[in-house]
């Protein structure tokens, strides 16, 4: 287990990444490669923008103890670039984002 600031990092349960990738390998191959990683229970890959050479995808990875470094390494090996980590859920249970007054307004 990775340590951060002298503490053990808690288990990552969900990871939402904004990724820029080439057309090849296909989205099926990318999703399948991430889905095959250890401790990954499921992957959702959604395409939201297609350019001439690249495409933007949102990758959601869920598992009991998702290894972020391994996910990152897999995406980079497949030619992708992680633009941002849009959502991360870690700890003993999955906590969904709560709506605030600001969101309601």
């Amino acid at each position, binding site marked *: 287990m990775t340590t951060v600031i002298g503490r053990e990092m808690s288990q990552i349960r969900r990871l939402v990444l904004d990724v820029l990738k*080439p057309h090849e*390998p296909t989205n099926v191959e990318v999703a399948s490669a991430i889905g095959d990683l250890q401790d990954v229970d499921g992957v959702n890959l959604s395409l939201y923008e297609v350019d001439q050479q690249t495409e933007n995808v949102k990758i959601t990875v869920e598992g009991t103890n998702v290894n972020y470094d391994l996910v990152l390494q897999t995406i980079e090996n497949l030619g992708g670039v992680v633009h941002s980590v849009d959502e991360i859920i870690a700890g003993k249970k999955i906590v969904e984002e709560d709506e605030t007054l600001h969101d309601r307004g």
Partner: protein
Amino acid sequence: MSFNIEEGRYLILGSIDGLLATLGIILGVSVVSASNLIVVSAGFGGAIALALTNGMGSYLAESTIEHGKLVKTERSLLRKLNNTYVESQSKKRIAKDALTHGGASFLASLVPLAPWILGVGSAFVSVVLSLITLVALGMYSGYISRQNYIMSVAKMVGLGTLIIIIVELLRIVHLV
């Protein structure tokens, strides 16, 4: 082994090259010598040279194109793709195309050469075998292009017949 459209292109290109160029050599050499050994030596030399030039030509051309594509993608991604799956797939494509082009050229060269290798020693048999192979190539071409099979076969056999006629005319001129 499955072939996609890219490899299909090299399969057709290589086969036509190997088949018709070697047939041309056989028809030309058989005018001056009826010896099996001389025809086989000339045809085999041509087959090897064609296979190597086709294979290396494809390797060089595909390397240029694939490298260009890779650089274009790298610019869009703002990163290098060295040692990635993308680069390894690109290298595999180059090797596969070069092997398909060179390999198809060599194998097709053996078709008109077969009667001479087997000791039949007949230019007519070489022509017939080549035309039969062109029919098969035409059908394959029709299959991958999703076009009319008859048209595709007619184009392929027509091209072969035209080349045979030109070579035969040169043979007659030579004999005169």
